[in-house]
């Protein structure tokens, strides 16, 4: 079970990395009708859960209208939305890349946010989505379907988008943040 926990996101806790230690092993029980033995184990897990305002470094995975998607290798769901990019920012549709229209005395100098580039960002928000089957369902409109009335609900459920259980929202709209190459002399 502990092996299964690694790589898993625990709601409101973070991304499980590995076992830290076992603090208590309770007695084992065998229940009637169930051949397996049950033992309650108290353990601590190392979890990735950066605090808000923490500064991290990742790599640009790709850009989209939604913003710049960043990865840290072991964690992929990081987004820098357009309003949190260094301004003024522009999305190049052809190249599918965001760029910073950096102003200098000689005029605007476009700095591209290319794939694979290392990027320093500050965590501004985190989103946990309960993806368990018994968790709160994604917001659905009034489900009460009257006979004879067609409902959009069933169609929506089947085309439901797979949401990441844990997403970090970040910003690079500060001096020193953004591509490492922008600030290295």
């Amino acid at each position, binding site marked *: 079970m502990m*092996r299964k926990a690694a790589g898993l996101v625990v709601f409101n*806790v973070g991304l499980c*990395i*590995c076992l*830290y230690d076992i603090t208590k092993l309770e007695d084992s029980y065998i229940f009637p009708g169930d051949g397996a033995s049950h033992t309650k184990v108290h353990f601590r897990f190392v979890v990735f859960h950066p605090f808000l305002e923490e*500064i991290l470094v990742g790599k640009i995975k790709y850009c989209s209208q939604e913003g710049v998607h960043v990865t840290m290798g*072991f964690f992929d769901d990081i987004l820098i939305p357009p309003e949190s990019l260094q301004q003024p920012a522009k999305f190049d549709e052809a190249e599918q890349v965001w760029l910073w229209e950096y102003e200098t005395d000689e005029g605007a100098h476009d700095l591209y946010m290319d794939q694979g580039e290392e990027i320093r960002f500050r965590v501004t928000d985190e989103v946990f989505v309960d993806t368990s089957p018994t968790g709160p369902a994604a917001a659905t409109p009034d489900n009460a379907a009257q006979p004879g009335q067609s409902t959009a609900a069933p169609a929506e459920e089947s085309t439901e988008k797979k949401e990441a259980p844990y997403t970090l929202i970040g910003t690079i709209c500060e*001096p*020193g*943040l953004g591509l490492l190459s922008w600030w290295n002399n």
Partner: protein
Amino acid sequence: MEVKNANAAMLSNYEVFKLLTDLKEQRKDAGKSKHSLGQQDLNTIMYETLKYLSKTPCSRQSPEIVREFLTTMMPQKLTKAVSKKSNLNIALISFQMVEESEERLTEEQIEELIQTVAGVLPGDPEQENAAAADAEMNGGAEQS
């Protein structure tokens, strides 16, 4: 599975790095084990996290350096958990640390802080120059 405490303790990058490196050694000693998918997932996340951490300054730290850093930083007026942990995770002064303290410390004190940290933590010369330039930049921004 039931979560008893969502935040039992904070670990520095160095502690996690050490833990993963030790676990890796243990697995190697225990012999090849490549069976279940569960095992695979554990290895992937451990591998990726270890890969990420080895590229950060924590891979050059040691328990002695950590101890020395914490004792040196004690007299500094920084909010305990957040600042110490974040400072440790960055070899030399970062904008984060300077920004958190800019309201409470004078530029002189910030300079002093930079020197102290630089003296205690190992870092590569390249980073040192970049960090010094950034700190200056921050200092300049404050004045304007």
